[in-house]
């Protein structure tokens, strides 16, 4: 029967449609509805919200900030995570397992708890590290951390780094260790081996890790909400505020839909690029 595969996948498709497609379509429709302080949501077709999102410089600035944060988080996660994965991969048996646990362990703890940890260390005058540094005379005023982009980037990098380490580690495991020996035998220094032989081979791993980290950083909610707060809004915290504080659901929907579309475009574009670049080499 030709239709059997379709029938068999029907339950899953129905579930997918019910919990993903329908709410998504409803959110898109919602973004075209009208809203007023006293009249609430009106189911009419209007481009008002979209016009506001695209013309008000507040939203432009906020989207720039979202993607700027995501970009730097991705960059730092790659700069720290890739060497970390390489070192991890070279460790001997008992240590490797232990340090893998150290790196992946934070995934087991709530993002909120981890972010609050950063807030406790750096938050204002009472933050532990700030207090220590000030009392030692290293700095005269507490380091600005809360409600700054730097703070959000630092905390998000910490939260998302395990994904980068895992992606690069998976790529490293596929390497033939003899390839490094071959390069050494041909006269390559340890640094040259890493730069010319190891790095190019794990580049697809770094790039796929980067795509994951970027997508998670751009749509992250808890960390920017705690560190950035109301003063430093990103797309997800703004959409949240529109939904739950202003109660302007249609505008929140427009922001959410735009974030989704932009993210999908960036992620799909990036993975296409990566695939085309490496199809020939790594098949």
């Amino acid at each position, binding site marked *: 029967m030709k239709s059997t595969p379709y029938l068999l996948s029907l339950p899953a498709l129905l579930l997918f449609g019910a919990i993903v497609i329908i709410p998504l379509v409803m959110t898109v429709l919602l973004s075209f509805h009208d809203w007023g302080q006293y009249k609430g949501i009106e189911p009419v077709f209007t481009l008002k919200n979209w016009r506001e999102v695209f013309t008000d410089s507040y939203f432009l600035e906020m989207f720039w900030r979202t993607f700027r944060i995501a970009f730097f988080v991705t960059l730092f996660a790659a700069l720290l995570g890739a060497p970390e994965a390489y070192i991890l991969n070279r460790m001997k048996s008992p240590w490797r397992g232990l340090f893998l646990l150290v790196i992946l362990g934070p995934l087991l703890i709530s993002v909120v708890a981890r972010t609050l940890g950063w807030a406790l260390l750096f938050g204002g005058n009472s933050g532990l590290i700030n207090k220590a540094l000030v009392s030692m005379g290293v700095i005269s005023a507490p380091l600005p951390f809360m409600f700054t982009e730097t703070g959000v980037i630092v905390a998000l990098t910490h939260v998302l780094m395990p994904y980068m380490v895992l992606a690069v580690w998976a790529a490293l495991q596929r390497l033939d260790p003899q390839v490094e020996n*071959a*390069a050494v*035998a041909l*006269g*390559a220094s340890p640094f040259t081996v890493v730069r010319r032989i190891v790095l190019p081979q794990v580049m697809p791993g770094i790039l796929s890790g980067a795509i994951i980290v970027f997508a998670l950083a751009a749509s992250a909610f808890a960390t920017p909400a705690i560190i950035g707060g109301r003063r430093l809004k990103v797309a997800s915290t703004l959409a949240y505020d529109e939904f739950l504080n202003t109660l302007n659901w249609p505008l929140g929907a427009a922001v959410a839909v735009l974030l989704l579309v932009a993210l999908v475009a960036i992620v799909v574009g990036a993975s296409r690029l990566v695939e085309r670049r490496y199809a020939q080499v*790594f098949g």
Partner: protein
Amino acid sequence: MSFLSLEGLSKRFGTHTAVDGLTLSVEKGEFVSLLGPSGCGKTTTLQMIAGFVEPSGGAIRLEGRDLLAVKPAKRGLGIVFQSYALFPHMTVVENVAFGLEMQGVAAAERTRRVGETLELVGLGAFTGRYPRQMSGGQQQRVALARALVIRPQILLLDEPLSNLDAKLREEMQIELRQIQRTVGTTTILVTHDQAEAMALSDRVVVMNHGRAEQIGPPHEAYERPATPFVANFLGRTNLVNGTTVRPEKIWFATSGLAGKVRTRIFQGNHWLYQVETAGGLVTVIRQNTGEAMPGEGEAVHLAWAAT
């Protein structure tokens, strides 16, 4: 003074002795095979020469210099790995040019030598391909070219043909021998395949439990094995009435050791017999000359030349 010498070379891993006091002298231009079953220490020996494994004892000298004092990257040896270990993200030309680049050879000279070496291994037309796009045999040639292009003092081959199918392996054996003769590089081959070792080498080192059981030309080791292990490893043997006889040295005669054919297997160019005799089961190999041969169950007499 010999070109390369291993002097009482040993390697212990914990309580396990992988190589146990191996002494070997290799002349310039010689092709020597380290032959033995897996775990006999042949690969460890090769890795100690290459510098990837540090010996527990003994010395390695190249033209009298202490090779162990030289870092692996400075030894200037050409190595062909069992997995080929090509750089997957580089084209054939980039792979072969890598060693020259590391030596700081100028671009023009590099291009010339890479071209020459690729011609030598018969890959002149494949320059822009990536390893993934090539067959096992072609990858093998790239690996050989990459090792030879730096004009190594010694070429080390670690089971280079074991990943190829039987027919290709035979072709590559002939080609490898020709290439080695052409460039005249001193070569050390590690293999568990006695046919390969005998086909390629000037001398074989038959190894067992980390020791050399016999070192000598293949023909000599085959005809006059020093130990029962060597005799068995280099081919089939029969132990008849206390003497060791190779199956192909026994023929059917009108008189001699009486027996009965238990099985007869046709293998194209030869017949393989199992003959029951008073002295036990005897294996006989007779060349297929097209003549009629005794069938299963027939009574026969076996004869062989006294040694």
